[in-house]
């Protein structure tokens, strides 16, 4: 774990990714002005529920969003080691993907090609980016399988995805992503589709690999528990925007944005006695019709007239590295008037 000194490895500023929907429904502003930094060696958790834009954000970084119907608006900045990824030509972008920035996905069954062996798929990245010979690449693949903790790697390297369990497939995907020792790993809900005991294994593996390889991890998840245990800093997203950014302990101890508060109250806990869960009323609005002013105001227990008309900017809360997009930061006395 490193601190936030020094330059950011990945800088995202004012990212906007919009989708054109079928006639009559308008534009879906899935990611609507998102900014955050990722520092070397740290794990940044991006937390949010469905419809908040976190997956689209991760896809936008590597420009994997399908161009129609989606497009990244000009004015968005995605800087990796100082270079603007959005301005790169196709061959240069390809040199970054899989090589410097790698990505793993939620569903290992559909992310792995069923007709190629596991070894071939891992070796592919090595062949493409590092120009290894097939033999060397195969040896590399076996090494990677070992690294991610798959038993009998020399045999497994010739297995097909369907011969492996869900947890193993996810490990293979991690191996594929890490073959070229990328500096950044984007993990999009890597454990959501896995059983709880397997999830623990995979998260432990990711922690270990991060330490060994010294890479930065962008961990996208809806699970606050995962973020609590594995992220250094957290970004909370709602309705296409970042609503709160903080170091992990700061977020959980002093949640500032009402949405974060609501989420924390709604998560069922093992250590708490049986009780009624606090539910956030209402539901996530559609990306084609974000509410005016603060996007959370229709569901917020504190909202007052200012929240309906003026959208708050990211405001410093006073705690280091902790910002929140909420008027309560400037008018904390309003917290008393909770509905």
């Amino acid at each position, binding site marked *: 774990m490193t601190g936030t000194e020094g330059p950011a490895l990945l800088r995202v500023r004012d990212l906007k990714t919009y989708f054109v929907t079928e006639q009559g429904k308008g534009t879906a502003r899935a990611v609507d002005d998102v900014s955050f930094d990722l520092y070397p060696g740290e794990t940044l958790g991006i937390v949010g*529920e469905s419809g908040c834009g976190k997956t689209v954000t991760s896809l936008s970084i590597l420009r994997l969003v399908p161009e129609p119907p989606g497009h990244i608006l000009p004015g968005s900045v995605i800087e990796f080691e100082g270079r603007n990824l959005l301005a790169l030509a196709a061959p240069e972008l390809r040199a970054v993907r899989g090589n410097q920035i790698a990505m793993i996905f939620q569903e290992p069954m559909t992310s792995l090609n069923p007709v190629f062996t596991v070894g071939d798929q891992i070796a592919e990245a090595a062949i493409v980016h590092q120009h290894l010979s097939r033999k060397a690449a195969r040896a590399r693949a076996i090494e990677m399988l070992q690294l991610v903790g798959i038993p009998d790697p020399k045999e497994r390297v010739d297995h097909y995805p369907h011969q492996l369990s869900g947890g193993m497939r996810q490990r293979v995907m991690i191996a594929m992503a890490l073959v070229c020792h990328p500096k950044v790993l984007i993990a999009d809900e890597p454990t959501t589709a896995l059983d709880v005991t397997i999830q*623990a294994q995979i998260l432990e593996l990711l922690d270990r690999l991060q330490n060994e390889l010294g890479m930065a991890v962008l961990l996208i998840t*809806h699970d606050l528990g995962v973020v609590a245990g594995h992220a250094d800093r957290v970004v909370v997203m709602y309705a296409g925007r970042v609503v709160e950014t903080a170091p992990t302990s700061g977020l959980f101890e002093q949640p500032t944005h009402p949405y974060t508060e609501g989420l924390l109250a709604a998560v069922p*806990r093992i250590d*708490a006695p049986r009780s009624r869960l606090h*539910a956030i009323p209402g539901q996530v609005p559609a990306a084609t019709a974000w509410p005016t002013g603060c996007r959370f105001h229709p569901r917020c227990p504190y909202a007052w007239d200012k929240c309906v008309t003026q959208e708050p900017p990211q405001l410093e809360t006073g705690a280091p590295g902790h910002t929140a997009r909420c008027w309560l930061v400037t008018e904390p006395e309003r917290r008393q008037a909770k509905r």
Partner: protein
Amino acid sequence: MTLVDVRDLVKHYAGERRWFGLGRPAAAVRAVDGVSFAIASGKTLGLVGESGSGKTTVGRTMLRLQEPTAGKVLFEENDVFALDATRLRALRRRMQIVFQDPYSSLNPRMTVEETLREPLEIHGLSGAVPALLDEVGLDAAFAKRYPHELSGGQRQRVGIARALSVEPKFVVCDEPVSALDVSVQAQVLNLLADLQTRRRLTYLFIAHDLAVVRHIADDVAVMYLGKIVERAPAAEIYAQPRHPYTRALLSAVPEPNPRASKQRIVLAGDIPSPAHPPSGCPFHPRCPHPLKSERCHTEPPPLREITPGHLAACHYAEKPM
């Protein structure tokens, strides 16, 4: 008063036959391998397990949505497996099910109203659709909509309304919140709890998430590879789990608390396939218990009472990890 009594329920799926359906079948999948429990009226039993544990199969077989291989289920003194089709259909009113996937549990070609009216038609009940919608917290305007126009949480509410329309006494909730977002999950869990109080329902709550179960269950049973490995009142199982798998499961749940520096028990290896369960204790290959021995490899531990009301299937349950 016991409402549901399950005794030695077994469900095996025959393996694929080779030679175009005429040869000997391959190994059977022992999805449920001897499960017993009872639920008292008005209570909730949480049934917890991961993939391959057989929990969903228990729920469906209990309601005879699949024919069992062996065992007995007594519902209000009726032997569910011995009933003929007509009596079974009548009994279906009293035992219902809510499904996991809000996207496939509603007929995409029927409006909400049609979906809710159907059970009333089948059983010749009079009942108002708007009242049902209201009870699950949906506005009457939803009646004319199609499932694809609703969100996951809304669909799940319709599924619950559908189950309630026939006025059941017992509801099997098969992972009803697993596919929902956290905030919606809380809404639906609260709804289920409210309905239980208001209508005096009895639940079998199937889930893989121990934290969710904590908030709704009176008793908890943990399943692994088709067998119950531990069963106890909820408070006890969370405070003093006696089976190593339960411990590992509890430890693996990510807690939204950065300070919780747990000694996390991370199990090695994968969940074995129910078609090839290990010999002896099904959990022994992955078991981290320090006292694990040869006995675990050869002798399957019976589910026995360790302290009053608390059962565990482990040779070393008296000395938990």
